[in-house]
């Protein structure tokens, strides 16, 4: 069983309430942090090797170090709780059950960065979690853990919630900042980076929920202790949202470096594939990352066991590897239509494109139409090449990473499953009836 740095107390009855959270050592780390120098806290986070848990994997301590600190200008820490990458549901789970861990992390991070006011931007659909967080924030204010002079330290700190309105793009940090300003979620051109010019033109750090929560055990135990967990530059633990055709889907906290095969098949984690079918493919880090067939997700092209780490999953580049991303782990059994699954992803990116950049705005819709044509049995082999061509003309040509995120699933599906596309083209009569997806009728009695 891996270490539980974030989820250790998640099953304690009433842990959502402040009193219970405090019986488990809650806010002791905030007390410790307030006795440290802000730069010492940043240093510990740097030493921990923590990398952004939202998907990009950028070192959190380095991001904190970039924050500009001009005299007399407010600066902000904004928590990105706009979790909407398909396959990812860890942040929702953590906020629902451990709201105070996020608040404690926000207070520590804000103290370290010199922010007097910070925001949690939560996606609007999670309104019930918004109310859970608001209750927890109210409790924290009453107990003197937020507000004026917290814990007698002289540090004044306000924490506010802000809800989105249903737009995947607002998970991109500059779109999130626009949305926090009450505008459409159109990503900004960088530079300037948010660390220099973020919300309301002020220096801003945007961090994922899990990253901010991880700061608590890092400050509690020290950066070096955190860095001792994991493998290589993939330090610490990671929350994995496991879904698709698994026997035991759910959120798992793993030590980075766990073999993928163990994660999928051991009873401690996902317990294997539903109905004891064979595994066909995995999308290991949320819908944006390249899909891999079974042989490449379990082992690298060199035959090494594939591990749940930033480096091992990326081993082989996009030719034979993928990315850890957000940790949204989607498993597909042998009956799955890769083409139809891809269609749902492409439709998603088309729906969520903000429309600023033409390669993304036009390209995502075009790919959706071509895939629809193939699924309908009217595709040609030239259409498969056309898809390849379109995705190649989106990748790297947009303001924000949504373009790449839309291109990579298409490229990887064609790269590894070209035969599936060709089967639709050559023998549509065999396949188009139900696209081989899991029938919900099987679930009626359950």
């Amino acid at each position, binding site marked *: 069983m891996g270490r539980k740095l974030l989820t250790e107390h998640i099953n304690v009855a009433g842990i959502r309430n402040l009193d219970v959270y405090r019986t488990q050592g809650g806010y002791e780390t905030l007390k410790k942090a307030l006795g440290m120098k802000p730069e010492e806290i940043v240093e510990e986070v740097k030493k921990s090797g923590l990398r952004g848990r939202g998907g990009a994997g950028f070192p959190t301590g380095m991001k904190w170090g970039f924050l500009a600190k001009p005299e007399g200008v407010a600066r902000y820490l904004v928590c990105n709780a706009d*979790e*909407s*990458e*398909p*396959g*990812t*549901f860890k*942040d*929702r789970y953590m906020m629902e059950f451990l709201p105070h861990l996020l608040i404690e992390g926000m207070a520590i991070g804000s103290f370290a960065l010199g922010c007097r*006011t910070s925001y949690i931007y939560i*996606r*609007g*659909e*999670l*309104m*019930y979690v918004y*109310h859970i967080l*608001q209750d927890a924030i109210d409790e924290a204010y009453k107990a003197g853990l937020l507000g004026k002079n917290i814990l007698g330290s002289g540090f004044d700190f306000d924490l506010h919630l*802000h*809800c*989105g*309105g*249903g*737009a995947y793009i607002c998970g991109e940090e500059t779109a999130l900042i626009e*949305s*926090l*300003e*009450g*505008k*459409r*979620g159109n990503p900004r051109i960088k530079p300037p980076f948010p660390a220099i010019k973020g919300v*309301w033109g002020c220096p801003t750090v945007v961090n994922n929920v899990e990253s901010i929560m991880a700061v608590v055990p890092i400050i509690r135990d020290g950066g070096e202790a955190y860095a001792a967990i994991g493998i290589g530059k993939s330090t610490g633990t990671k929350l994995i*949202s496991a*879904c*698709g*055709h698994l026997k035991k*889907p*759910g*959120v798992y906290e793993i030590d980075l470096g766990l073999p993928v095969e163990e994660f999928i098949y051991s009873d401690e984690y996902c317990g294997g594939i539903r109905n004891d079918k064979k595994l066909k493919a995995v*999308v290991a880090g949320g*819908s944006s990352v390249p899909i891999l067939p079974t042989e490449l997700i379990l082992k690298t092209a060199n035959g090494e066991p594939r591990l749940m780490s930033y480096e091992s999953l990326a081993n082989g580049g996009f030719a034979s590897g993928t990315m850890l991303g957000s940790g*949204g782990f*989607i498993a*597909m059994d042998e009956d*799955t239509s890769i083409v*139809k*699954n891809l269609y*749902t*992803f492409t*439709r*998603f990116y088309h729906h*969520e494109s903000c429309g600023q950049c033409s390669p993304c705005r036009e390209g995502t819709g075009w790919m959706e139409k071509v895939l629809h044509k193939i699924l309908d049995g009217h595709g040609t082999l030239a259409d498969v090449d056309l898809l390849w061509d379109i995705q190649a003309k989106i990748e790297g040509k947009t303001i924000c990473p949504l373009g790449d995120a839309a291109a990579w699933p298409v490229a990887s599906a064609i790269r590894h499953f070209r035969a599936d596309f060709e089967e639709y083209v050559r023998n549509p009569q065999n396949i188009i009836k139900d696209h081989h*997806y*899991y*029938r*919900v009728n099987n*679930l*009626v*009695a*359950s």
Partner: protein
Amino acid sequence: MSDSKIIKFSDDALALVERMKGRYPEGKQKSALLPILHLAQAEFGGWLSAPVMDYVATLLNIQSIEVYEVASFYSMFNLKPVGKCVVEVCRTGPCWLMGAEDIVKYMEKKLGVKEGGTSADGMFTLKTVECLASCGTAPMMQIGETYHENLTLQKVDDILDTCKRDVHEPISHWRKNKIKA
């Protein structure tokens, strides 16, 4: 536009609007637009009419167009009248893998509507939405603020029956009776 004179939040809702505005620095009150639009949608029948959006603009001292362009960008805001219960079924990959398409087809038949339509009795609007971060408990749908997970056709029947029995006025993501900041 003249309708906007009769559109007004309750005193409780107005107090909440003030608290929401107070969360942002002086002069940056436009930031409260998204939360206030959620509140407006809950207070005024589950959708945002042009007069309602004009009213929101006056509360924040911004132009109406600044409200329209935001309301039309975000998928949670309904710009046309909807049924008392907006049933939002997730259709993205992980839910599709677990049979979301069957759920949608079943409800289309049961409610006698196509995706996007409202049932003849005005009770249900059937909407498909993109990933709601509930992939481990797929297939799923949301009604108001409630997530209904691990759906089966039987569960869908039960949920819709409960709605028919218990829901008498439009419900929204922001619960109308949940007036607090």
